[in-house]
Structures are given as structure tokens and as C-alpha cells.
């Protein structure tokens, strides 16, 4: 079956999952999807690691470099002015995307990891003392574990870990039981990058707020799939990374409530973040600039703005419907492969399907399906504590983006059948 035929099939009447969504047209926006690997069409099922970029993003960035580029916030000259406007309009778009109260609540970082380190470091300086507790969950990515461990080792705080059940569900009752008088922050993921579990984040936040505890949310895997409204959620901090949202690498986003950001000290020192410097005393700018030392990711912010426009043009609901359809199809199709077991069957999931096979290690699975042109992630997915909880060393993970098709799921399934054939 050709891609076009598959797409027609996917969009056939009666198939609500994809009816509203013209995946063939979407695919045409992503130049890389015409690439071949090992002589086979690229089947890119690794968007949770990093998503591919639509032409609209690539063009917005090269257009900036070609027509409107200088350093920002620095020159009186026209180019600097124009570039500053374009950069700050990227910030406005992010604010709109998250429904933040104001663009001043959006801090640009190098990636999500830097945003976690920023919060951990600054929040610790301002608010944490020996014996205080931070609650994270078993589902966390290393980016939301290790910065807290560094704080723990520096200050003697205590990390409390919310457990999950065998299906990968976040255990809300156990979570509530962990909240105590010394809990100073809850830092949990919105969507698990390995299992796809959607955490009931609104309830998580409400339970913490009932005790006056602020909440940081890792939205890296959520924003590509779910419409996020930080005000409706009442999240105190919300972090995501540009490159998983069809935007460029080199840019991450920290949303923080104004009042909270104002209470935090600077993260790094340098240019951009100061109001005035003398050798005796330096005064710092207000957020967000206080947290953006040095030349920021200028063109990346423009690219991220274009990615947000792109996602908005398709509509989160249509994207979610398409991806949910794909995930359901993939789960049904993959479980037909002999010896395959899904890992992560939470009640609510994003379009991430992790699995293991009886006789083949995920690493071998990855190599074999690669030869069929299929890119999947294999390994511990930067979530080793989660792997330990699940009792596996590693998993293979197919993650679906807005450009994937059911035909691609079929290619994966066939490749997995040959894994089974080889390893028996």
C-alpha cells in the first residue's frame, strides 16, 4: 500500500480518529519525511525524543537569518530593533500557547533541562533549607530528578517519590499521603516520556495548593499532544522544550507565575540580565530577563513561535484525535506480534507505546527495525528509576507525532515480526 493510499484509508469516512486531519498534507510540510534509510522510506517513530520540523519553522528561521538578524535588546540600530521585536513576539506566542497571564512569565532557556536546573537552583536558594521536602514521581525524566539530587546533596533536603502501579498509573492517594508540613515543592511530569501515562495534573496541583505547596510541571511530552492552559491548571511553574514541539533545538521554556519568579534570585550572571553594573554593586532586571544571562536563543525563539503557529493552524484537538487513533491502532497491531508485551497501559495515555519482546533485547529490536527504515528509541529513556520500578533494563518505544500514519505502524509491526522470526 502506498502512503497516499494509507492516508486515504486513514481518513476514510466513519474513521473519526483521522477524518478531520489530512495527514498527507501535513506530511508534505516536513521535508525530512521524504528521506530514505537503508533504501526504505524513513518511518520516524521517535518524536518523543525529538520531533521533525515543518518547512514553516525551517523557513522562519532562515528568513530571520537572511533578512532580520542582530543581537537583541542592545542596539539602537534598526536591525537590532526589528530582531528584538521578532524575538519578543516569539515570547508572546509562547505565552499565548500556554495561556500565561503575561509574556513576562515566559523565560527562555537552552532546553528543558536547563529550566529544571534553573528552578532547582534558584528555588533552593530562596526557599529551601535542610530537612525540607520536594515531591517528585517515579515517572520522572532524569532532567527532573538529578537537579533535585544536586540540591539534596548541597542542602540536605529530602526527596519523596510518588509511586506508580504496574500499569504505569500515577497513584494519587499515595501522592496525597506524601504531602506534609515540610513539603516545599511538588515537581512532577504531565506526561511520562516512556510510558505515555497522562498524570492527573489538575488534581495533583489542587491537592498541593490545598496545603499551600507550589507545583512545577514537566510539560515536555504534554505540549505536543495536549492543549495546556497554565492558568486553568493553576500551575506555578511549567516547563517544556522547543524541539519536541516541532520547533528548533537550543530553546526551552520556563513558565513561572510572576509573583513566584520575582521571589527568585538570578540563575546565572552576565549581560542581558542586569539593570546596572558597577564593581561595587549590580542590580538585576525583572523577570524574565533576570533569568536570561547572555545572548538568548534569538532565532530559536522565532522558530519556536513558528512551530506554535503551525500546531495552532492544525488545532490541538485534531492533532490529539489523530494521534489517539494512531496509538489505539498501534497497540492493537503490536500486541498481535508474537512475544511482544506492552509496557505502560495506564488509563490515560499520550501517543507513546513502549514494549518489550520475549527473546529480543530492545537494543536488538532497535537495530533490526532500523534496517526496515523505522526509527524507534530503545534503552532506558533517561528514566532509569522508572525502568527499575518496572523490572526491565530497557524498553523499545514508538512515539507518534502529527505526521505519522497507520501504514507506518504496519511497517513497524512487520519489522517486529521479523525480530520474532530471527530471535524466535
Amino acid at each position: 500500500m502506498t502512503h497516499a493510499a494509507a492516508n486515504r484509508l486513514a481518513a476514510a469516512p466513519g474513521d473519526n480518529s483521522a477524518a478531520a486531519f489530512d495527514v498527507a498534507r501535513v506530511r508534505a510540510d516536513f521535508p525530512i519525511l521524504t528521506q530514505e534509510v537503508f533504501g526504505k522510506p524513513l518511518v520516524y517513530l521517535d518524536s518523543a525524543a525529538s520531533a521533525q520540523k515543518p518547512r514553516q519553522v525551517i523557513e522562519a528561521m532562515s528568513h530571520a537569518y537572511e533578512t532580520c538578524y542582530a543581537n537583541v535588546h542592545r542596539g539602537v540600530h534598526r536591525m537590532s530593533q526589528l530582531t528584538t521585536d521578532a524575538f519578543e513576539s516569539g515570547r508572546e506566542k509562547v505565552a499565548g500557547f500556554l495561556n500565561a497571564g503575561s509574556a513576562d512569565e515566559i523565560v527562555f532557556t537552552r532546553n528543558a533541562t536547563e529550566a529544571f536546573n534553573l528552578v532547582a537552583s534558584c528555588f533552593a536558594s530562596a526557599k529551601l533549607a535542610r530537612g525540607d521536602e520536594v515531591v517528585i514521581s517515579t515517572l520522572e525524566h532524569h532532567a527532573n530528578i538529578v537537579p533535585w539530587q544536586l540540591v539534596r546533596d548541597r542542602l540536605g533536603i529530602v526527596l519523596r517519590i510518588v509511586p506508580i502501579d504496574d500499569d504505569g498509573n500515577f497513584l494519587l492517594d499515595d501522592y496525597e499521603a506524601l504531602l506534609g508540613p515540610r513539603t516545599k515543592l511538588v515537581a512532577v511530569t504531565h506526561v511520562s516520556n516512556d510510558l505515555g501515562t497522562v498524570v492527573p495534573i489538575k488534581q495533583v496541583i489542587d491537592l498541593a495548593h490545598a496545603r499551600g505547596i507550589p507545583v512545577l510541571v514537566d510539560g515536555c511530552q504534554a505540549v505536543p499532544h495536549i492543549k495546556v492552559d497554565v492558568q486553568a491548571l493553576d500551575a506555578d511553574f511549567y516547563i517544556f522544550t522547543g524541539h519536541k514541539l516541532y520547533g528548533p533545538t537550543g530553546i526551552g521554556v520556563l513558565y513561572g507565575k510572576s509573583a513566584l519568579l520575582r521571589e527568585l534570585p538570578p540563575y546565572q550572571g552576565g549581560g542581558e540580565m542586569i539593570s546596572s553594573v558597577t564593581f561595587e554593586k549590580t542590580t538585576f532586571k525583572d523577570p524574565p530577563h533576570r533569568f536570561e544571562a547572555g545572548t538568548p536563543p534569538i532565532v530559536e525563539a522565532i522558530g519556536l513561535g513558528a512551530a506554535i503557529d503551525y500546531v495552532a493552524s492544525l488545532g490541538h484537538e485534531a492533532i490529539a484525535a489523530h494521534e489517539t487513533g494512531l496509538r489505539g491502532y498501534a497497540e492493537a497491531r503490536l500486541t498481535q506480534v508474537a512475544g511482544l508485551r506492552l509496557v505502560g497501559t495506564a488509563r490515560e495515555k499520550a501517543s507513546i507505546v513502549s514494549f518489550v519482546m520475549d527473546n529480543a533485547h530492545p537494543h536488538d529490536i532497535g537495530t533490526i527495525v532500523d534496517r526496515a527504515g523505522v526509527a524507534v528509541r530503545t534503552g532506558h529513556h533517561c528514566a532509569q528509576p522508572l525502568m527499575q520500578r518496572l523490572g526491565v533494563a530497557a524498553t523499545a518505544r514508538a512515539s507518534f507525532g502529527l505526521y505519522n500514519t497507520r501504514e507506518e505502524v504496519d511497517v513497524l509491526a512487520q519489522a517486529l515480526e521479523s525480530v520474532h522470526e530471527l530471535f524466535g
Partner: protein
Amino acid sequence: MLDDLRELYQEVILDHGRNPRNLRKPPEANRHAHGHNPMCGDSVVVHATVDDAGVIRDVAFEGRGCAISVASASLMTEVLKGKSQAEAQALFEQFHDMCTKDGTQAGDPDNEELERLQVLAGVREFPMRVKCATLAWHTLNAAMAGGDEVTTE
């Protein structure tokens, strides 16, 4: 597609991957090291028994991992028994070249051990997998050198 892959996953490898030899911890072993591949989380512990003359009397390993890393560890334990440390070192270097350098031929038909390891030469075509094939060897090297931790980074 499978043809290509059968180059990598030869029967010998599948067999050693499924039924690894010397998967144990000998009580008399006097050299130990833990090897770790951060990329996939695989880890292996190598135990060697070296006598006073510096001859490797026994090599065994524990751990789990992909077919390539387990088969390589298993084969390694078989070819190293009775070798001096210098011979083991030389064999590792030849094996490493075999896994990484194009055009390295089966070469020396007198080198029976290298001949046996030839089944792993297929990893050359899969650069991401070279570390799997060499993990146990790096770990053995660390054990011999008196280290106890090694990662493939």
C-alpha cells in the same frame, strides 16, 4: 532485509546470546570489574581468576543485555582461558580493530581465537553496536588493570 541482519546475528551469536557460557561468579576469582553502557543501561560484571604466573585460569561474567553484548561476553570467556595477560591484551586489540576498522580481514588463520571471534565482525556495519560488542572486553581490561568500574562512554 533479514539477509543483512543475519550477517550481524549469526547463528553462533544467537546461540551464545540465548545460552551464554560461563554465566556465573566463581568463588576463587581474584579480578573483578563492573562494566556499564550508559546508552542502553546494559551492565556486565566480569570475574577473572589469574594465577601467580599471570595466566588467566578462568573468566566468567554476570549481567544481562542485548544479544551482541551477551554473546560477546560469552565468547570472550571461552577464548581467554589459559591466556597470559599480555596475550589477552593483544587479542582485545585485534578484536577491537576487527569490530571498528573496515577492511580488517579474518587475517591470521593461525590465530584460532580471533577466528572464533570473527562472528562478531558484522558489528562493523552497525557503528552504534560496537560498544555492545566491546563492553565485556573493556570490563575485563579494567579488571586486569585493577580497576572496578568502566563505562563505554
